[in-house]
Every structure is written in C-alpha cells, then in structure tokens.
C-alpha cells in the first residue's frame, strides 16, 4: 500500500524524511505506523531502528495514531508573553484532553510546539496546514467548534 508513495522517490536514505512526511500526510490517522516503518526499511535498506530514531527526533512526526485535526499550539516566549497558557487551558477544557492526547471521537489531537514564525500574530496555533493567529480564549473555542461542525 506504500508502493504509490515509494514510486515518487529513489531508494536512497536522504529521501527518508520526505517519504515519512508523505506517508504521514496520507495516513487517515496522521501518523507513521509500525507496518509503514517496516515497508520503508525494506525499500530503503535502512534498519528499522534508524527510522524510529528519525521519527521520534523530529516533532512533526508521530508514531501514535492521531486525530483528523492536529492542533499545534506554540509555547515559545513571544506567544508565552501573550498568554498562550490561557489558550492552552481553554483548548484542554473545550476538547476534554491533555496536551499530547486525542479526543475520543478521533477529531482532534492537542500538541504543543516551538516557534512557528508568526510571532507578529502571537499567540498562534496551527491546525493541520492552517495557521490561526491573534488567538483569544473565545476565538480558540470558536475555531474548534467550527471545525467540529464542518468535519464531524
């Protein structure tokens, strides 16, 4: 099932990061499964432990199934000063999960991340590929509710 993805890349180790991105982006649960790692290992002739090393090193990858929508809230100093902790609490409350967890309906995973480079609009979060800036507690709640209605 990963052959379609492999076709796009030559079997050299420097393509590992791309292949993992591609697999994760096409996975319904936003993660790289054990089975996928095994396939990549065979395709690239790279040991499984190396692939896990890479997967767990970079924050954009996950080895655990995640929700349809991955929320990444920035906790770096510029967002911190603008009150990202309050946003985090609001998100936890709205979603009913702690950071790192996925909601039971499988819609959201809440994660914390480092600077997203949109500090002019702090506090900022990313949901999948979309940025949301100038967050307030109300705004964060509205965003979550809108997505919930749209994609439920």
């Amino acid at each position, binding site marked *: 099932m990963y052959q379609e993805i492999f076709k796009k890349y030559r079997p050299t180790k420097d393509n590992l990061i791309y292949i993992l991105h591609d697999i994760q982006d096409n996975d319904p649960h936003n993660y790289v499964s054990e089975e996928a790692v095994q396939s990549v290992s065979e395709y690239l002739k790279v040991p499984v432990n190396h692939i896990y090393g890479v997967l767990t090193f970079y924050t954009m990858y996950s080895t655990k199934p995640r929700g349809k929508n991955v929320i990444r809230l920035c906790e*770096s100093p510029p967002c911190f000063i603008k009150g990202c902790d309050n946003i985090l609490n609001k998100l936890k409350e709205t979603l009913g999960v702690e950071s790192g967890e996925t909601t039971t309906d499988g819609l959201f995973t809440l994660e914390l991340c480092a600077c997203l480079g949109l*500090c002019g*609009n702090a506090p900022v979060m990313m949901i999948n590929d979309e940025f949301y800036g100038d967050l307030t507690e109300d705004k964060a709640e509205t965003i979550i509710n809108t997505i919930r209605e749209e994609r439920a």
Partner: protein
Amino acid sequence: MNYFRSHILIETDEASVQQGAKDIMAALKQELAKHKLDKEINVLETGSLGFFERGVCLAVYPDNVVYGDVTLNDIPQLVEEHFLKGRPLSRLMLEKAEKKNIPLEYAKRIVLENSGNIDPEKITDYLGVGGYLGWEKALTEMKPADIVQAVKDSGLRGRGGAGFPAGLKWSFTAPIEGVQKYVVINADEGEPGTFKDRLIMEGDPHKLLEGTMIAAYAVGATKAFIYIRGEYKLCIARLQNAIDQAYEYGLLGKDIFGSGFDLEIEIEIGAGAYICGEETALIESMEGNRGIPRNKPPYPGQEGVWQKPTIVNNVETIANVPAIITKGSDWYQKIGTPECPGTKVYTILGDVAVPGLCEVDMGTSLRTIINTYGGGMKKGSRFKAALVGGAAGIFLGDSMLDVKMDFHNLAEYKAVLGSGAILVLNDAVNIVDVLESVIRFFRHESCGKCVPCRNGNEQLYRSIKKIKAGLASEDELDKMILLADAMYKTSFCALGQ
C-alpha cells in the same frame, strides 16, 4: 500593454493570508470590476508591508497610501471613496504619526528592498527592478575568485546568529578542486521571535535565488539546496515557483548565459527541529538522519553533505549578495559599522506601540529601534528589558539601550545579536515567567547528544519551577548560574551554550 492609473499591492504573506487576504483580494477585484475600474486599477500580490498586528494591509501606488486592518466589509466603501471619488479613506489609513515614524521606503533597504513592492510570484517583476543583474554580471564579467574577494572586501558577516565572515567561509571551499561541491541555504528558521527569513522568502524569493546562484558560482558548486522548515508552506510554494521560473528563463540549468557553468537548485524540507538550524545538524537531516550536530573539524566547508565540501549560509546573508555584486563592496562597506558593514533585519515584538519589521544599519541602538521603528512603548507601559536575539539571546536592560548593536559590539557586553529578534518587555512582566518559557524551549529542543545540554536544561527547568513556586532558597540562583556556566563551557554546540 495595458496602462493602469493605479496599483493596489495587497500583502499575501502567511500572516495576512490566514487573516483572509486572499478573500479580500478577490472581493477587491470584483468590486473594481463592478465599477468598471478593473482596466484602470491593477491588483497585485506582494510580500509583507512590514506592519504586524494590523490585519490585512494594502498599499496604493502612486498615491503612497497604506491601509491596515482591512476587512471584507470595508471593500465597497474603500473602492468608492478612494478609486471612484479619489479621496483616501482616512478611517483605514495607518495613522499619520505611524507613517512618519516608520519610513515606508528606507533608502538603504537591501535585503527587503522589494518586499512589499513587487509580486513575488512573477519573475518579470523582479527583473523589472533590476533583478538577476548581479547574476549576469557575476557569470559574464567576473571570475569566481573575484566574487569571493568582493564578498570578503564587503565585510559581510553571516546573519544566522554567529556572525562569521561570509567571504572567509567561501574562501576555504572555493580552491578545493576535482570534487562535487554544494551550497546549502539555511532556511530552517526556528529561533523564537524570528521570522525575517520567512518574510524574505515570501516577499522576494528571487533575490534569495540570485544570491544562491552567485554563491554557487563563486565556490564552484553545481548544485544548491534550500533547506526550509516543513511548517513554512507558503515559502516552499513561492520558492518552488521562483525556481521553476528561473529554469524557464535560462537562469538555471546547463551552460547558463553561454558561460559553460551548470547549476541546479532544489528545495529540501525539514521536519521540525530547532537544532537543525545548526549547520552540521542540518546536513545530518538532509542525509536522512536525526539532526544531531557533528564534530567540528572537519568543517562543512571541507566535508559537508555526503562528505563533500559544502557552504552553508543563512537566507538573510545570501540575500545581501546580489547588491554587493551589482553595487560593489566599497558601497556595501560604507553602510553600518566598520566591523559589521551592511544592514540588519529586526523583528520588533512585545510591548511596543507598533510591532513590526525593520531593516536598519548595523550599529543602530536598541533605543532607536524601539522608538523610531517600534513607535515607542505601548501607551501606559514602561520599558523593563528586551530579549534580543531570540530565545538564545540575552536580556538587555536600561543601561544597554544606547549601545550600538552589531555582532562585534554586543560581544563585548557578553550579549549577542543572534537572529535579530527583539522582544520588548514592560515592567509588569515577570522575568521568571519569561525565563521559564525560554528554558522550557531549550529543554524540549535539546537534541540529547551531549550531557551538559540534555541534563543541564532539565536541571535548570526544575530550578526555575522551584523559584516560581516560591520554594527555592537564595542559593538556588547561584546554583543555576554555576550550572549555566558549566553548560556554556562544555556543551557540544551553540544550542547548549
């Protein structure tokens, strides 16, 4: 060709797009068409106009009016007032005082001269403002050694944080013969508070390409990579578009301008690790490994990507190169300070009246930057300190306000210029809180290779938690200073230091 009486430049950088810039652009075009003005007034996309926290901004030329916080509902009135009746809509104009304080066009802007003035998705716009003249000059009139010398003479220093002289770096790699060499542009911007590279790439991607081309020719590399962090989707799209156009125009590829020189440029995408901003970690990541720094020496200039000589330069550094070639190193050297010529891009954040972006001469003081370009402190707040250089930077207090800021001068005060992020704090902010956030950041981003950084940051985090909870005794602070000093001396790379 159609002649337009006015041009509306709407900023479509990542920040504006997420605030609806694309919809506003579509509405604007529609409204203009409704009034049959679409043949007279041109709507163009451009990079950041340099204002933050001002929503979607747009500039009208030749009127030189800038509107901020534009929403969909404002469009009908804006078109009617400004373009039908010919009187600027004062309600949305960025305040006069603001405009006086923040010159919209600085004479000395080098890196950002085109951002906010041209359409970053059209190569013809860049060519129209003299783009790629430096590349043509370099390739047809200069020898590689002349270019290395010119960059050396210009005194250009790396803008990624360490401030290493760029020409000197190139001169180590240029003479190596008989092997494949590479140029890698470090666009893995992750220093908290820093997004100058994003604005350069979103606002003027061709300038970065031109600089990359010149650098590659100077050191004899036939392949260049631009390593961009995975989160910067718009940068990736804009740069890929720019690369495609450059191939189409024969600026990249085989036997460019009939010189016999071949060059390919490719984009590499990161996966989210602050440490990959360190050049050897970035190289590890390109090879498909964990981004853990390598031993130095050998330096990348001798053994870099796939053990081949590799030049790694920051986006802002490279964006200075075209101007050095077209205008000469003498011209460049007169800007800024003798030790650090040129300009520096700063992002001003926090409790200032007008958070924004500025490109000023090296050596400009913090006071000038805050007062002139940041519009002073926010009403009712007093300056306490500024965190300069991102999370890896240093807090500068009152006494440092008038120090001339460049790599050389700040080093004397044990401070750093770093990436050029300035986070201004007012006197109501608790430094312990900010410090906690900084340490939390490093605790998370430490790659785990060496003990001082891995365990040290964890220990510092515990201490600051203790202090915050009011459980620490007075010597806790001394312990932290002692530990931080040990980390500085023994850490493997600049992250721990």
